[in-house]
């Protein structure tokens, strides 16, 4: 009971090794690339989707196209063998999470994934327990932001988050649901 509540048991706050040294800090903070450039199905599908190799090469066929760091990427493209990443965020098989509706109603990436722009290797920031989901689904206001700001890592509500949240909920017609089949089907 207590064990289940420890960050360790939830595999939180442990950076996950990846097959190639991809650094979110560099891409998002230094280059200022929007999350949706790579995770480009996040607003129309359940999955944010991990970018296909092709997408990496959109840039890296031009820049750093000799860099040994990127060898696996080029190899993957040439051999038509996918890059294999280690998953950081995972909900159980019987949970149906849908990114598009959350992003579409103004829940920011940072709310669940944390300051990815400050992570060398991405780590799990939130427990992803049912209780945690319900907290927000029961009163989402404090986690809402303008839809335009969802990928903004540093956005903060002016004044009372609760209050502005209520306004946004009205505006974006947010109806969080807590019926079981919302997530379990």
């Amino acid at each position, binding site marked *: 009971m207590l064990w289940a509540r420890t960050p360790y048991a939830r595999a939180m706050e442990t950076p996950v090794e990846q097959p190639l040294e991809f650094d979110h800090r560099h891409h998002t903070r230094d280059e200022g690339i929007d999350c949706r450039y790579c995770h480009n199905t996040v607003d129309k599908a359940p999955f944010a*989707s991990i970018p296909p190799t092709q997408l990496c090469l959109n840039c890296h066929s031009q820049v750093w196209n000799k860099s040994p760091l990127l060898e696996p990427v080029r190899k993957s493209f040439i051999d038509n063998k996918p890059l294999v990443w280690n998953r950081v965020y995972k909900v159980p098989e019987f949970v*149906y999470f849908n990114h598009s509706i959350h992003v579409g109603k103004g829940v920011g990436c940072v709310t669940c994934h944390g300051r990815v722009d400050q992570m060398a290797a991405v780590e799990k920031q939130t427990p992803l327990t049912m209780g945690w989901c319900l907290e927000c689904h029961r009163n989402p206001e404090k986690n809402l932001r303008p839809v335009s700001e969802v990928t903004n890592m540093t956005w903060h509500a002016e004044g009372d988050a609760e209050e502005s949240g209520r306004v946004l909920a009205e505006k974006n017609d947010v109806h969080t649901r807590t019926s079981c089949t919302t997530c379990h089907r």
Partner: protein
Amino acid sequence: MSSHDQDPLQDHPEDHARSTPSGNGASSGSPRRISLPIVDEALAATEAASGAVREQRKYWRSIAEKEGSPKLAAAAQREFPPGASELPEVSRRSFMKLFGGGAAAAGLAACHPSDEQAIPFVRRPEEVTPGNALHFATAYGVEGYGLGLVVESHEGRPTKIEGNPDHHDSLGATGRYEQALLQGLYDNDRAKQLKHKDEPLSWHTFLSQMATLSGRHAADGGAKLRFLTEPTASPLQLELRKRILEKFPKAKFTSYSSIAGDGAADGLRLAYGKYVEARHELTRASVIVSLDADFLGEGPESVRAMRQFAGGRLPGAPMNRLYVVEPALTVTGMSADHRLRLRAGDVAGFALALAAELGRRPGFAQLAGIASGGHGVTAGDPKWISAVASDLIKHRGQSLLIAGRRQSAAVHAVVAALNAALDNVGTTVTYATPLLADPLSGPKALAPLAEEIAAGQVDTLVITAYNPAYTAPADLKFDKLLARVPNAIYWAAYEDETAAVSSYVVPAAHALESWGDARATDGTISLVQPLIAPLWGGHTDIEILGAFLGEGDLSAYEVLRRSWAAKQASVPGATGEFDQVWEKWVGDGVIVGTETSPEAALTLDAAAIQQGLGALLAAGPKGAGVEIAFVPDYKVVDGRFANSAWLQELPDPVHKITWDNAALISPAMAKSLGVEVERDNDKFSVLVIEYKDRRVHAPALIAPGHADDSITLALGYGRTGAESVASGVGFNAGVLRGSDAPWFDRGAQVSLATGMHLFGLTQNHWSMENREPAIATSLADFQNPRSEARELLEERRAALPTIHEPHDYSKEQYKWGMAIDLGKCTGCSACIVACQSENNIPTVGRDQVVRGREMQWLRVDRYYSGELEDPEVIVQPLACVHCETAPCEYVCPVNATVHSDEGLNEMVYNRCVGTRYCSNNCPYKVRRFNFLDFTSETPAVRRLGMNPEVTVRSRGVMEKCTYCVQRIERKRIDTRVAGRLIEDGELKTACQQSCPAGAIEFGNLNDLKSRVTKAQADERRYDLLHELGTRPRTAYLARVRNLNPELAKG
């Protein structure tokens, strides 16, 4: 053998499935290759998943180390030769419980570190959005015509079959077979290896051998070259035939299907002097007489016919009236207003009697003449016949007579005459030039070929017809003959009876893996496109025929495209760039404007019929003794679907038999034979049936409403091929079947064998025990507001006194509800398979069904009333009715079944601990329990076809109908992202979508304009077990029988 030919994990550069989004709610994008590795990874994933990980929905996130692939590759190697199913990881038992994944300890997964991996595409096809389904149009049919389909695909894996609303025969619905196609596709038992006399062969070697062969035959114009094909109306097939016959003038094509009847063709030829085929238009028919025709249950027109028939069953509008004359109850017979049970052999007598009766009426003298040709052959109750006659006359021009495929040319000719005399031609029935390659394709068509083989006049026989060695009439001994053909090239879906005796076995590509084209019954052409590249490198029949034109190395895709590029001009309105036209054709699933119009000036040759009849009747079955009558099985047809556990476990609509066929006999006959019934009305004596020199042991089943002294035997069972699901199920009735009388004959000897047989029936009780769960009433009673029936209906929907204020759902955005119209429902059971496919429902096998543990969420109850010899029948589909005050909810100790804000009765699998209390307290008994682990042994390849939107249930968990909540939630999210509400009709449950009759309405009860709201406000509406105060969300509409006052009982 090069593993490349069969290893599903190898890429097939040539034959990537090209897929095009259809016009039917498909998502955006232009044609792209669904790169095969996706499927490979899915295979790998599911292979890996057979261990701990039970991820089905997001294969691309759940793929463990690539170990998966080699393992499967290895498996593929071992899957040869026959006996594929004897794979260690795929035991016989596991086939009893196909699709699935299970999640034994999933409950804990929530708080455990994930060591899974995420595998993105290398190149993501443009139209693919991981997690969003695509829809592709194609077509499929079992009797030469194609039914338009729309197939749902997840990341390149077909997962659900629906009807194509734009298709003439489908109108958006499907039959039971189409729904089960996926099982045929993802079937580990499929033929996987190209072989010559058990020697593995590569496709290229095969082609070169065919080249030499055709070279040899070309010398003598193909005198010893024969082709045995399925009946087909496919333009491409016909074109290839033409070209082959040009190359080999002396070669011959034979169309053969053991379920095709030749009576219709011959009869109409007799009537109209040339081969024509009948097309029926039931919307215009107010009186329909079926002479042993199960037109709602079988045949390429059935899906459409059912929609049209159901349309005429509303008491509000003028209702149609259906008379059925048949030996054994069928889907059509169960829907009849008046039914006359008659031996199949006596139907001819009935037709003549009816003609004679009409002949006696003013204005039908012509018929009297025709009837006289019958030389006094007659059958049927005169009172009944005269009543029907009067009714027909009353509705002259809006009546329709249909004769069944089993009936002789005589019957079909007389029926043609009757339709003509009643001015039905041109309104309810039209005649058109046959679209099928050969007008005759029944068992009789096979005889000449058999003779040629016997006479050694056949060197090369190309067989693309289904399993002739098994389906051919017994007296032809076709299996023996085939063994004598030097080069028998069999296009094999499975390594079945025919494969065993053919020299060449060419693995067939599944319909969902093939390019091709097909015609609807009105001639409209559909392009058939693959949903996935051949899993085991199968080839299409196009490619095999092509081999004899030296085009074998062209893919079917090329052949098809070329042929249509050439024909573009012939299609009205198909102008412009071919690529775009092609896009549209493939996308829409129909090529508009290609229907063929019926023959105009046809004149009935009454005299010819009159002369012809005598000879025909003389030739037909006669004599005394017990009649044996064969029917294509309702589920496995002629055995071609026998390896689909969904269909095997589907209770047949009338007798609710699963995993079996039976000798259906009337109660009286059972009595006279001394047939014993044991246990819970599901254990019967076994009969020995002897006919000519042939005999078979067949378990009896007492069939109310069956004609006396007649035995109905379903074909397609007792299979002996290498098909693990099919083999050992039922008995082969075909061994009694003769080519002279392929459908019915008299003179069978029947006696009791020792021993009893236990059937896996899903419903053992015939009577409603005076509880009237399914209400049927006559039109007269219904129109009289004082009638008992009306009072009963009132009572069954009136508000009940309650001590607590029922919860008010009217404030919610949605209030989901369903209405099922018993007047429309024919019991065809397509919905059951649709539900099974949509919701990943496992099959459990015969033994579990016997124990009462079948898993189908949706069942169709069948009740008899009146006397057992000749009962009235009513069917009632029943799944969870989503009670507003649900008895199951308050007894669950762990909150695993609860109520949603919109009134859904939710079942939360991952919370369920399996006390089964909810089921005990469910008065409808619609909950299903995973008594054993029915899912985790599912072969990886079968998992590809599962619906990723639905959790796979593990052992010890309760499940039930959810109103397809996964569809509701996905639609809700899509619409809410778009910032609007779900509109009426854009959200359909699986059962509703597949229902040919349109008997099921589902939608938002808070929307006063929605179809379901209107349906629930109907005068016929009532609630099942209303008196219990459960407030079900599913309402029923009583069946109204349009009785003929002259025949109405009492």
